């Protein structure tokens, strides 16, 4: 029994000390696998990208309150087949932190979603296309900040053929036989 307790204690202390080191070094933001969005040739579709800020960290929103703060920005690589439209960022939360209790910062914590509008060209062939992007963010915790990081991401867009244009029979003009 004593051996069991000793080994359990040993295991726990090793685990706890390892956890202490995980903070500053690892990336503070990760993206969940993006759903494959189907877009019809020539039509717009929205791709939702879900990100998660690690517990204990915050990153600036897309519209931080100070000119000195680095906003979270998704930079999408240009593609030849898909027009990249507007990127919509969620509103951040106004939060105070221990290092500046009187100041409200506009930040993302936990899960947040960025929406990207895509529109395949009319001429593009149907199929699956990959779009690459980079999320730039700058993370802090309650006592320290970390240099800005670039998180490379990608998502798939499935392009479907546009349905054939519906051709109506033109109304028959009255044809009078005399």
């Amino acid at each position, binding site marked *: 029994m004593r*051996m*069991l307790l000793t*080994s*359990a204690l*040993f*295991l726990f202390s*090793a*685990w706890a*000390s*390892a956890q202490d*080191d*995980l903070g*500053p*070094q690892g990336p503070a933001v990760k993206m969940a696998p993006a759903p494959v969005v189907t877009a019809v040739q020539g039509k717009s579709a929205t791709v939702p990208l879900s990100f998660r800020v690690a517990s204990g960290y915050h990153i*600036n929103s897309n519209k931080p309150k100070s*000119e*000195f*703060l*680095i906003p979270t920005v998704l930079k999408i690589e240009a593609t030849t087949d898909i027009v990249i439209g507007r990127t919509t960022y969620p509103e951040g939360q106004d939060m105070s*932190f221990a*290092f*500046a209790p009187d*100041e409200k*910062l506009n930040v993302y914590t936990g899960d947040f979603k960025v929406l990207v509008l895509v529109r395949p060209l009319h001429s593009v062939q149907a199929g699956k296309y990959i779009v690459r992007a980079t999320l730039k963010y*700058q993370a*802090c915790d309650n*006592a*320290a*900040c*970390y*240099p*800005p990081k670039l998180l490379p991401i990608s998502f798939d867009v499935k392009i479907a053929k546009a349905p054939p244009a519906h051709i109506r029979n033109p109304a028959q003009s009255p044809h009078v036989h005399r």
Partner: protein
Amino acid sequence: MKRNPLILFFIAAIVAAMLFAGIRAARNNRANGHAKRQLMGNLAPDFELPALDGKNLKLSDLRGKAVLLNFWATYCGPCKIEMPWFVELQKEYGPQGFQIVGVAMDDASTEDIAKFAREMGVNYPILIGNESVGQSFGGVSVLPTTFFLDRDGRLIAREFGLRSRSNFVDDIKKALSQGKAVPAQK
């Protein structure tokens, strides 16, 4: 052969502990531990960087003074908390041969860094840092990071992240008490 579950658990615990210890050691080598082992107690790596006033400052030129070397950035909230303390500490301990040096480690323009420093009322030199200087101090992956040099230029303490003002006072007193003071030039 019948295996004792207690022994199996113990073996699993040891393997898991070794794994975690390995991860920890690897991380330490990459970051802070590297700086601690390689730098502490030794002469601080020397560098020469441009200051906001346009002049260059060489760290070794401060030999004879106790130095607080603070790596910071304009985007760093915790750094903003320390700066007013540093202004006070420079006033209080400066006459005893103490010098604070700030090293800005961000991508902001020199004008923005100068504007920020003015707004904070900084009364000590701010240098424009770069990656290689950060690397020479073991890699500055956390801001603020502050090193303390004794009068001989040896690194005697370091602080990662925001610490209490009393922590800084203790380290400053330690830095002032060690090494050889250089008489002020007339």
